[in-house]
Each structure stands twice: as C-alpha cells, then as structure tokens.
C-alpha cells in the first residue's frame, strides 16, 4: 500500500536525478557546451552589426531558438538513456509507479532547460546586441518554451531510450512534434522584442500553453505503455 502521495514520489525521482546529475554532469555538459559553442560560432560570424536593421527582429528571434532547441536536444534524452544503459531502469521499474517516474523526469528536464536558458539567453542578447523592448513578455515566452520543450520531449526521450537510445533518433522523432511549438515561440519572441506591453505576446502564449497542455496530458496516458513492456 502507498503511504506516500504521487508528488512525493516524483520529488524523490527528481532529487535522485539531480544528485546523480550534479555528480556526473553528463547532461549538463552536453547541453551547456553545445549551446555555448553554437552561440559563439553564430555571434562571432554575425555579431551585432552584420544584419540590416529591418530583418533583425526575424533573424535574431529565429537564431535564438535554433541554438536553444539544438542545445536542448543534445541533453534532453540523457536522463532516460542513462537509466536504460546503466540497467537501473529495471530496478526503478520495479520500485516506482510509472507516473512518478514521468513526473520526476519531466521536472528534471524542466530544471535542465531552465538552467540552459538562464545561461544562454542573456549571453545571446549581449553578444548579438539583441535589444528586447518587452522583457516580461520575453521571460513569459521563454518560460512557456521551457515547459513546452520539456513536455514534448520527455515522452520522446522515454521512447528512444527503449528503442536504440541514439541521439539522432531523438532529434528525428522530436522535430515534427516540436515544429509547431518552435514557430509559435519564434513568433512570440519577435513580438516580445518588438513591443514593450505584454498583450502583444498573448496569442503566441495561448498557442504554446495549449499545445504543451495537450502534449503533457497525452504523455501521461502514454507513458505507462512506453515505460513497461
């Protein structure tokens, strides 16, 4: 019988993942280094002056999300792949409920992405001379982006960990699912950078939040199928 609630089990899985990650820093290195190298490469080549004034808003928003998305995909699948490769997945399968594992891993991916965004975005704005008019709007879009990316890719990570576990398969499977999210995020970022008031960001936010909600709810129903044989 379960004396504890689902939430405390999710937090147990999360704290385990965090301590393991802080000691081995597998996903952190992958995500951080990938993000940094692409950012430096882009900033070095383009920098704040080489784009003409009229197409700066489109380009800078799109470039930001390209860097963030590909940095994310290099690290998001680690949490599940490591469990399968180290054979700890079977022990966890026999110890925890599937929803607790999904919750814990989702929260872990959220924190990992939040760390990546906090690290890369300010650097990006500085190196690329990206003047953002509506900072609260941008922060809202970024937060929605963290939830969206983590929500979509957690189940995909679980799927590929049970398949071949390769990162390329993770990118192939998550691209079509993340595409609508990316289009809305880029549109939201462009709007947030353009105008200071918050209302301009709302249409994109509505789209992102509803897509993330639908994806997370579907993933909750699908996760037990993927996690257990």
């Amino acid at each position, binding site marked *: 019988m379960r004396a504890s609630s689902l939430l405390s089990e999710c937090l147990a899985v999360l704290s385990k993942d965090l301590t393991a990650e802080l000691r081995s820093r597998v996903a952190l290195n992958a995500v951080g280094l990938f993000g940094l190298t692409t950012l430096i490469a882009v900033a070095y080549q383009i920098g704040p002056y080489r784009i003409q004034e009229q197409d700066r808003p489109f380009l800078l928003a799109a470039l930001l999300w390209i860097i963030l998305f590909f940095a994310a995909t290099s690290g998001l699948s680690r949490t599940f792949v490591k469990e399968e490769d180290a054979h700890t997945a079977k022990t966890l399968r026999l110890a925890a409920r599937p929803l607790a594992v999904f919750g814990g891993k989702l929260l872990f991916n959220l924190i990992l992405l939040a760390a990546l965004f906090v690290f890369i975005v300010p650097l990006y704005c500085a190196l690329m001379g990206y003047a953002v008019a509506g900072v609260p709007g941008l922060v809202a879009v970024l937060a929605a982006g963290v939830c969206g990316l983590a929500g979509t890719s957690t189940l995909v990570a679980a799927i590929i960990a049970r398949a071949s576990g390769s990162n390329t398969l993770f990118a192939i499977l998550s691209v079509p699912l993340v*595409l609508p999210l990316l289009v809305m995020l880029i*549109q939201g970022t462009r709007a947030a950078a353009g105008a200071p008031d918050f209302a301009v960001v709302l249409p994109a936010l509505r789209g992102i939040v509803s897509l993330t909600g639908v994806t997370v709810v579907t*993933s909750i129903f699908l996760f037990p199928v993927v996690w257990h044989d």
Partner: protein
Amino acid sequence: MTRDQVRTTLHWLLGIWLLAVIAAAFFYAPTARSFKGESARIVFFHVPQAWVAVLAFCVNLIASLRFLRRRELLDDARAAAAARLGLAFSVLATVTGSIFANVMWNSFWNWDPREVSIVILLVIYAAYFALRQAVADDERRAALSAAYAVLAFVTMPFLVFVVPRIYWSLHPDTIISSSGAIKSQMDPRMLKVLIASLVGFTGLFVWLYTLEVRVARVLSARRAQEV
C-alpha cells in the same frame, strides 16, 4: 456471390471509375478562369492524394489505439500498413503540390500552409518508420510506434490550424490564399470531377490497405503455426 467475386467486381468497378476520372479530368472539366494553363488540372490528383495521406494517418491512429487496448500484433500490422500508404501518398501529394504551386504561383515552394502541413505529415511518417527500424523486439516496436503515432496525431491539429493562421499574420501579402479557397469558386463540373477523384482515390487506398492487412494476417497465421 462469394466474398471473392464481390471483391473482384468491386476492383473492376474501381478500375473503370478511375479511368473515367482520368478521362474527365483532362477532357470533361473546363479550366477555370483562375487557372493558368492546362497543366493546373493536376489539382484533380493533388487534392485526393493529400486527403488520402491524412486519411491514412487517421487509420494509423485508430489501429495504434486498438493495439494499445488489445495488444494484438495484427493491429500493429494494420497501423504499419496504413503508415506505409500514408507515406507514399504524402510524397505524391508533396510532389504534385509543388508542381501545382509552380504553375499557379510560378515558384516550386512558397510556404503555402497546406504544403507545409503535408510536408510535416511526411516528416512525421518518416520519423515513425525511423522508430520502427530502431526497435528489434516486435512487441516493444508495436507499443513504442503506437505511442508515437498517438502523440504525433495529437500535435497534428496545431500544425494544420494554428501555425498557418499565425503564419498568415506574418505574410499577409502572399498572392492567392490556399487551394481551399480556390475550391469554393470552382465551377460545378470541376467540382464533380474532383469529388469523383476523391472517391476513386479513397477506394484505391482501401483496396491497397486491405491487401496489406490480408498479407499480414496470412504471415502471422503462418508464424503462429510454427510456434
């Protein structure tokens, strides 16, 4: 009339029906004012192919959900058969779509939302098959690809409805709206041929689909015998 005789008559009926559709598409239907030149008649083939690609995706979803409930490998075979046909038809739809775009807006690709959603459907099919190749055990492959099919289907509406509307606000000045609008101001004869073509292509899809499922059923029966 045994089932086989019914089936062969239906097949011959479908054959003649599509012959008539092809003939009508080239000779019976006039080219509407908004079409430039004769080769825009390809719309009679492009729209049904896109429709069959989406139909195949729905059949794949239903088969996947049925597999998740009943865990029968035959449902997985159905899902895979529908996905294969869906992939073939979405490739055809993309090719005919770009030819159609080239004729209408003299550029092979100009981000018309209908084209974007068909190509994304193509990418989803490709990812679905990449996943199926990557799993060895057939029970697990069935479960994982069923889960992915359901997840991809859920994000599909966002692709088809939300992205184009947001995208339009970015480029309001594109020349003509998506082919959906053209359909409404077509003249009645063109509409009749298009509907006939839709029915014909759906019949073709059903025929190919049942063929594949019958093969899968025979193979699984043979494997069950060997155990």
